[in-house]
């Protein structure tokens, strides 16, 4: 019904109200079937129940509108006096009950399928942070953060919005196709919810508890989703991107990932110049700090203090490092020590001390942070 009605809706609404209709917008009116077996099953169930509701609606509203049209006083209708019938009451209790049983059967089998505990090929721990996701490939021993990749300029309407506005990340989650991937979903701070509509997976991420979900993606592609549980200020800005690759592509990606981790260790040991640290630091700042402290370091006081000219960013470097590494318990400031690599930490601290008019001119080397973390 909906599908056929679309052109009509577009015409009537479009011509009555002169909206500045965004070219990229579409008029999706229904759930998408998605790509996995489970998502198709869920979609079919959705459609069955939708049509049952439509049929019931047509019958009930049909009788009602017929009464409205035919039994109006202005047409001289004389009211009947009946006001009860046990038979009818029993009938219209029993029929809905039977319909419900009819709905419950496919729903139950779909649910049992979703709860299938059979062994998985790949286990990925998904951790929700305010406001980003972290993915840990448990047995492959790699892990990384996935941050929103949309620029503040697009969000604040200073630049044209791209096709994947708010649904793009710097590091997508990469999985192989046709493998059972198990997601272990948890959170670092508040409750989040990991949702990718195309694979029909939505699981709440709860701090201290680990939830489980799984999928088998049959075809390569990029599948986008968002956090679905209100988790604070940037709840709307922590998207999820899942990239499904063929086994060979996945293996290549994995090897590259592991090599990159080795390179990161090398980078840690070299001596960086101020310029190099500033350049890297700006990127780290943009994906980890700018959400609260703003791209220009102005913050959103009082919850998120300004860094520009702040006593920490312009004070002793030791104290600055301490705040970034360990956070400030009881405030929004998280401990970034476990989240960022020594290179990233050194870069972002150096950046904060030398950007936006902060001009300490000092810097800290990644190796110093690494040694400190190892020695203490």
């Amino acid at each position, binding site marked *: 019904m909906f599908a056929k009605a679309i052109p009509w809706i577009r015409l009537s609404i479009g011509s009555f109200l002169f909206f500045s209709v965004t070219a990229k917008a579409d008029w999706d009116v229904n759930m998408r079937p998605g790509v996995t077996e489970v998502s198709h099953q869920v979609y079919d169930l959705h459609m069955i129940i939708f049509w049952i509701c439509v049929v019931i609606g047509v019958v009930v509203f049909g009788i009602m509108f017929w009464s409205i049209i035919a039994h109006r006083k202005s047409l001289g209708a004389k009211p009947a006096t009946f006001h009860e019938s046990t038979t009818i009451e029993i009938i219209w209790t029993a029929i809905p009950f039977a319909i419900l049983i009819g709905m419950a059967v496919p729903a139950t089998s779909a649910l049992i399928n979703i709860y299938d505990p059979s062994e998985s090929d790949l286990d990925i721990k998904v951790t929700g942070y305010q406001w980003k996701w972290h993915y840990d490939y448990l047995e492959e021993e790699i892990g990384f953060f996935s941050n929103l990749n949309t620029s503040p300029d697009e969000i604040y309407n200073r630049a044209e919005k791209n096709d994947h506005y708010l649904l793009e990340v710097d590091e997508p989650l990469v999985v192989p196709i046709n493998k059972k991937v198990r997601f272990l979903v948890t959170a670092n701070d508040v409750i989040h919810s990991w949702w990718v509509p195309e694979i029909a997976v939505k699981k709440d991420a709860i701090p201290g508890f680990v939830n489980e979900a799984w999928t088998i993606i049959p075809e390569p592609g990029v599948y986008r989703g968002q956090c679905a549980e209100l988790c604070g200020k940037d709840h709307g800005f922590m998207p999820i991107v899942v990239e499904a690759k063929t086994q060979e592509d996945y293996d290549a990606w994995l090897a590259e990932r592991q090599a990159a981790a080795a390179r990161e260790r090398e980078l840690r040991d070299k001596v960086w110049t101020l310029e190099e640290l500033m350049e890297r630091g700006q990127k780290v700042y943009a994906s980890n700090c700018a959400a609260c402290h703003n791209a220009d370091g102005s913050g959103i006081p009082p919850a998120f203090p300004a860094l520009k000219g702040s006593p920490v960013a312009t004070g002793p470097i030791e104290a600055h490092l301490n705040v970034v590494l360990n956070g400030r318990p009881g405030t929004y400031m998280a401990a970034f020590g476990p989240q960022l690599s020594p290179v990233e930490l050194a870069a972002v601290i150096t950046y904060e001390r030398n950007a936006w008019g902060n001009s300490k001119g000092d810097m800290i080397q990644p190796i110093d942070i690494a040694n400190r973390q190892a020695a*203490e």
Partner: protein
Amino acid sequence: MATNMPGDKKAMKPAKLLAVVLGMFCFGFLLVPLYDVICDVTGLNGKTGDQYVLTEALDVDESRWVTVQFSTSNNADMPWSFAPSEVKMRVRPGEMHETYFIAKNITGQRMVAQAVPSVAPFSVAQYLHKTECFCFNQQVLEAGESIQMPLKFFVDPEIPGRVSKLTLTYTLFNLPEVAANL
């Protein structure tokens, strides 16, 4: 019927209703232990229950393997490094095993931590028995101190056959000194 009630009986009505109100308020708090009991019995939310006291020798099920994965998380405000010594073990149900986790306080001050275990899938949480676990106690580490924290466990031979893999995750929480002293 109602209007013929004697006066004193009538006055009881709001008193009874107030009693219901107070009862429901207490019931609100009663939901806390009630929920814990339900979680322990059903394994809801992956709670693994308290220390398991072994009363008799175990029958080891030699016919099958179960993979136990270990993983760790740090809650916000918890800067320690914290990792399992091995990411997975293949075990026979009923066989006692031992492993350990490594925690290190990389900050410059003394801190108190509490590790909270969670098992996925939830439905089998009650089949993972811990006879010795660091999660039963708070962990105090001085600045820069590190520690190996032991875990002794076995998988119950009664574990449903459909389940061949379970993941034990510890989340490390920073306990403020106030809460730690309670």
